[in-house]
């Protein structure tokens, strides 16, 4: 395993993804002296403490100034360093967007953004701190790889991939703990390749981030309570999206539901819809996420339920989709 990272399943249940990021980057820092970390007064929240303790000369707290942080990171990358800059997703994607756009993505430099507190995971903080638009915004940035890991193990994999792959990355993780999806990081993580978590033939659930766990739970309920075979894809990489996996799902299940802790405008669901439409085969797609409304405040798990992106909500929506009619034959002439 690269960088000698040896998290166990037990550790991964005890550590939040941000903490796993913190440990991963501290490990990677020992073998790669070009790795530096930047934080806008969030070293504690974004769990960069281990790196700071080990490499104080390669850590920069820039104060509450996200724009400056991303600009500095781009300048460092131009000079040959590999900066990991971490802050809340809402500020990485919106406050510092101009710097992300021009300094990082246009110049195509080696800046890695660890965007924490993704989606509604900082639920009680309200809409000023919910990041429900970030994926939609950042996936329009040229050169940027966008990853939304399902849990801590996948966060470690994404961080390692970012460290070993040239170019800008945006890795979106949650605040606090996520339900564990992977017991080991050894499951064949590859940037741009969806992971089939559950095979299925009736419908495909495509999820990212904490919604992967919810989709897997939903698949179990659908299997045992409703005799439905739901495929679950972990679409951890939003950009570049795994077109092959999406089109395979269209071909084989013809009904799809996307699930994301993000507005249904512009995020995973939209990315999947783009692939489907260009694929030329009709299918049913329902996008689950936060509707085009501000989310209420609340605990993350309560908000997942409120937005029907928890297991129960997904099951409810899948049952509705299964009742919808869809053309079964391959003769599309009558629909044109």
């Amino acid at each position, binding site marked *: 395993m690269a960088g000698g990272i040896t998290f166990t399943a037990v550790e991964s249940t005890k550590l939040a993804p941000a903490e796993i990021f913190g440990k991963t980057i501290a490990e990677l820092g020992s073998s790669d002296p070009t790795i530096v970390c930047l934080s806008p007064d969030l070293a504690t929240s974004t769990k960069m403490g281990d790196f700071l303790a080990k490499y104080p000369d390669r850590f920069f707290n*820039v104060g509450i100034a996200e*724009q400056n942080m991303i*600009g*500095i990171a781009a*300048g460092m990358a131009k*000079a040959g360093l590999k*900066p990991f800059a971490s802050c809340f997703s809402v500020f990485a994607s919106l406050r510092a967007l101009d*710097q992300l756009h021009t*300094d990082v993505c246009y*110049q195509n430099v080696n800046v890695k953004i660890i965007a924490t507190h993704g989606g509604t995971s900082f639920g009680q903080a309200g809409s000023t701190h919910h990041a429900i638009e970030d994926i939609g915004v950042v996936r329009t940035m040229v050169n940027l790889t966008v990853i939304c890991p399902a849990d801590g193990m996948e966060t470690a994999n994404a961080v390692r991939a970012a460290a070993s792959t040239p170019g800008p990355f945006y890795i979106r993780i949650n605040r606090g703990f996520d339900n564990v999806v992977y017991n080991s990081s050894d499951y064949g993580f590859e940037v741009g390749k969806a992971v089939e978590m559950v095979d299925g033939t009736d419908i495909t659930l495509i999820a990212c981030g904490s919604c992967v766990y919810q989709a897997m739970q939903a698949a179990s309920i659908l299997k045992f309570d409703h005799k439905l075979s739901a495929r679950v894809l972990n679409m951890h990489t939003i950009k570049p999206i795994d077109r092959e996996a999406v089109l395979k799902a269209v071909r084989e299940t013809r009904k799809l539901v996307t699930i994301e802790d993000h507005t249904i405008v512009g995020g995973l669901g939209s990315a999947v819809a783009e692939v489907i439409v260009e694929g030329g085969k009709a299918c049913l797609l329902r996008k689950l996420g936060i509707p085009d409304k501000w989310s209420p405040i609340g605990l993350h798990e309560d908000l997942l339920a409120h937005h029907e992106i928890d297991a129960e909500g997904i099951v409810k929506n899948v049952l509705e989709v299964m009742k919808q009619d869809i053309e079964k034959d391959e003769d599309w002439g009558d629909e044109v």
Partner: protein
Amino acid sequence: MTLSKQEWIDLEKKAAELRELCIETVNWAGSGHWGGSSSCADILTLLYYKYANFDPKNPTDPDRDRIVVSKGHVGIVLAPMFALLGLVKKEDLKTFNHTGSKLGIHLDSNKVVGLDSSTGSLGHGSSLGLGMALAGQILGKNYKTFVVLGDGECDEGSVWEAAMATAHFTKKKRGAGNLITIVDRNHNMIDGNTEDIMALEPFEDKWKAFGFETIVVNGHDIPALSDALEKAIAGGEKPYCIIADTVKGQGVSFSAGNYKWHYGALDEAKYNTAKADLAEYAKIRIARAEKEGK
């Protein structure tokens, strides 16, 4: 004065050559940001020819000094600068702003070898330059980073985020003291005089309050600007900000001090006037160098 008479004369000739090639490029392009280009032409001349450790034959040397022109809209003087350095083909200047050209209003550092950063969205260069300066210390390099700001650009809050951090990381001895900020204080922005649109004064006090050592100097006076740069390069406890007092559209009668020449097009008569004015302006400056140089 730190410059010898011959150096001064040579630099005057270089600055004149740069302004002349800039006005030619404006003509080829059809229009351009002549005002802010002319105002910073002497600053760029001193940086690229004299004070930055930058070898055009080895433009990506990791040990080179960095130059970030944060007022990125002056590609029309930067591209001629790179042409004079031999890093851009002079023929390519004739395509400036043309469809498909690698040279446009804001230069792309992925297309112009030796250009340290793409800029264009104002207020970014100070952060980029600070990142380069901080990186230098981590990488064990001793290079300097020069950031050229526009004065109107200093309306952007991000300039001051970076200024605060530059002073902070200088005090913390993290390498930020190797960053030298030069403001092209040409007093004008697109819509008018800076003091009418959004007052910057007391401008020097602002930089001082942010923790900078400041030098206010005539940005078209080669020996004075040289002395300022030498002092800033020598460094000190605080980071340096040189406020170069300049004239927008300098050297051409109809554009000098005229905010409307932020961006403009030349007709044949204006082109001819500009050429004649620049030749006369250069003559006066070289004569002064010959008279006052030592």
